[in-house]
């Protein structure tokens, strides 16, 4: 009975509830950190400084956030259609295959202004295609999309290992990676771009893919809330019977939603391959697809919320790495535990602080 959940004022719902969730997660993290014998306040300081303390650390935070925005949007679009796409990981990975193939085929012949857009399109197209297969199986064969997308992550991983080791590996290379892309396929780093307009920052992995991610946010927002397809997609997600009544073809809408979702996940490949690695490598998408689920949940499926949640997770990723570097006692696994707790409290336990907030703000107006 939803009515028993008394409404909270909008700003509490959107602003304070997530903050309370994060605070609770950090409280628990602090306890754990104290138990292993580290001063929690010192650790927190290192975490925050590590994520935001210098232009370099900010750069890395934003670079991670870029990936989370892409996968967060991917999960959110599917979610608005009532589909739980757990396959962002595999879609990003196969998107990378498309990106790599396009660049390897074209970078010696075409100028930057053609190679990069084509590579972006290829990333999106391959990501979409990888999502289209589970979508088709759900729409026409009734196979549940949660199961199929998760299995497709494994298929993608195995396929990529095979291709990298046997087909795409650079001749004479000892590691499974392709030849380096030429400079015409490089998305400029943020440092270079800012220098160009006279702002000096420290170098980092951050590149102009961040702008693409922000454009994708605006695009998703327009699509979902300002086009008839987005309207139909959301109708299907809330109430498939009403969508049927309104004349929406549910099978086709399932395909559309999943292809869009997969295409967005493909954005990770742009950030990683064109922006950072400059060659096709293994496992560049690892972890981003799954964290995207938490990002989408925490951002309430809204692009603005997703950007904020992506920033948080980017900061955790970057600050956590610094923390691990400074205090080796806090291992990488600990950092994963911290992320896990934030996900736990803002995902599964999202309603935990609600009763207290209700007691505080029991809405009368």
């Amino acid at each position, binding site marked *: 009975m939803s009515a028993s959940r008394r409404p909270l004022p909008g700003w509490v719902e959107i602003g304070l509830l997530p903050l309370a969730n994060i605070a609770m997660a950090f409280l628990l993290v602090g306890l754990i950190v104290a138990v292993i014998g580290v001063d929690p306040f010192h650790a927190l300081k290192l975490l925050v400084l590590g994520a935001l303390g210098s232009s370099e650390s900010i750069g890395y935070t934003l670079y991670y956030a870029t990936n989370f925005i892409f996968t967060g949007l991917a999960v959110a679009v599917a979610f608005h259609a009532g589909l739980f796409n757990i396959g962002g990981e595999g879609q990003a990975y196969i998107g990378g295959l498309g990106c790599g193939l396009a660049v390897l085929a074209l970078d010696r012949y075409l100028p930057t202004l053609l190679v990069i857009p084509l590579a972006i399109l290829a990333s999106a197209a391959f990501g979409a295609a990888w999502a289209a297969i589970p979508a088709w199986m759900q729409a026409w064969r009734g196979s549940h999309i949660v199961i199929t997308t998760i299995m497709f992550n494994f298929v993608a991983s195995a396929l990529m290992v095979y291709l990298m080791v046997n087909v795409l590996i650079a001749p004479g290379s000892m590691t499974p990676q392709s030849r380096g892309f030429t400079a015409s396929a490089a998305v400029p780093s943020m440092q270079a771009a800012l220098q160009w307009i006279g702002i000096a920052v420290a170098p980092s992995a951050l590149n102009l893919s961040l702008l693409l991610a922000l454009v994708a946010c605006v695009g998703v927002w327009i699509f979902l809330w300002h086009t*008839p397809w987005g309207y139909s997609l959301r109708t299907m997600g809330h109430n498939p019977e009403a969508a049927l009544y309104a004349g929406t073809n549910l099978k086709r809408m399932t395909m559309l939603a999943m292809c869009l979702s997969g295409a967005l996940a493909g954005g990770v490949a742009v950030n990683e391959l064109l922006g950072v690695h400059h060659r096709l490598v293994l496992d560049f998408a690892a972890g981003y697809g799954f964290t995207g689920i938490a990002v989408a949940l925490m951002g309430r499926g809204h692009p603005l919320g997703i950007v904020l949640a992506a920033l948080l997770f980017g900061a955790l990723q970057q600050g956590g790495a610094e923390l691990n570097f400074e205090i080796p006692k806090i291992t990488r696994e600990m950092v994963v535990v911290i992320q896990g707790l934030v996900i736990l409290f803002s995902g599964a336990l999202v309603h935990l602080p609600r009763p207290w907030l209700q007691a505080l703000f029991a809405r009368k107006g």
Partner: protein
Amino acid sequence: MQELTADAAIELREIDKSFGSVHAVRGASLRVERGSITGIVGENGAGKSTLMSILYGLHLADAGEILVDGRPVEMASPRDAIGHGIGMVHQHFMLVDSFTVLENLILGAEGGALLAAGLASARGELARLSGEYGLAVDPDARVADLSVGEQQRVEILKVLLRGARILILDEPSAVLTPQETDRLLQILRLLRDRGVTVVLITHKLREILAVTDKVIVMRRGEVVAERRTAETGAEELAELMVGRKVRFDLDKAPARRGETMLAAWHLSLVDGRGVRLLDDISLEVRSGEIVGIAGVSGNGQTELLQVLSGIRPPTGGEMEVCRRKVDAAHPVDPAEMRDLGVAHVPEDRLRQGLVPAFLASETSILGYQDREPFCHNYLMDGPAVGKYCADLMERFDVRPRTPGLRSANFSGGNQQKLILAREMARNPKVLLVGQPTRGVDIGAIEFIRRELIKSRDAGCAVLVVSVELEEILSLADRILVMFGGRIVGEVAAGEADERTLGLMMAGARAA
């Protein structure tokens, strides 16, 4: 004061409740005597459901006092209400379809780690209760296999089993057939005679006059009148509710039938398991007439509407809609139907007609989202949609007039008016309407029926499906009766009466 309240099972004092800018209940006070049936009537959005939800602990009042058996109590959640012996039966049943009746009854009150003990004791209790109150249901039947009336009995049993002595029913008869409603009223009388206090919210004055001891009338959030049932009548109650005289008779001119807009020949529909849902249906609806489909619910009316509106393709036979031929090989989807000029008001508004989480403005264009003036160059025009919705609300008196409010937050009758407005406002050539006035107050019923007749007079071909005989009789120019997926008879409006129609609906073939 104490003596005064001694015989009151419930007393509400100066209850006030706002949702944002909507002032739903304004200082409402009422008393419900122990062991009586009290009716609550009022226009759509008058605050009846909200007031009862406050009593049941679903909403927290902003101000006011609740007294049970003369003692002030705190109702912070339904658990508190149940603790004070108050139970509520909602209009939308909260049963697990795949469980048996018994399993549903012990849900949330399993009584121990092992189910067997709880089940056995519930079986005993159930036998006692059904004997005492005439609430017969098979404890081992699956809920999915029960009729709506039986499911409601399970809900009532569930409440009684938790020890409720005060029973609140919110529009219990909206989903029932007339026969089932009569059963329900009998049960309520029996409950009262055994000492249970009953509060009944309904729009049907017939039910109020038949069973209640006292009626409370609400208007715009206030309790405006209270009458002993024996000392009032339908006319006075209607006037108190609406604030003006309500005319029960519709004076409509004879139909001026034009050309055939909708025709079907030997339509059939067989589902995946081979069950014949529709069998050899032939009908025609001409412009300028209202054809009514009468029948006990569950005899194929729902499926007929689905096929005629393009939601489900027929498995056999053919039809012609605005000169477009449709059969199993040439199906048509609801979007194309709308292009042809067919509008459809679905029977089940919450599941089909609207998306509860959408704003009213979004609901007001459901099915028309990709059309002018709501969408140009692939982009939707938010302000145009909002303005359109505001216009519809004005024309059809949807309250509150807030296009930005979520559809779920409108009262049941106002949701219905919004859907009707959406479908009727586009001047369709064919209008398919399922249960046009389900859950709608009498003022609005009068209004909706007049609008349907106006559409007819403007040349629309109208097909109305309703389980309310009285509605069919007052609206239709021709009446078709459905039974077991077939059309078992046709009667011209002038020659129809409740008795012959009732016989046909029960399956006795017309001569």
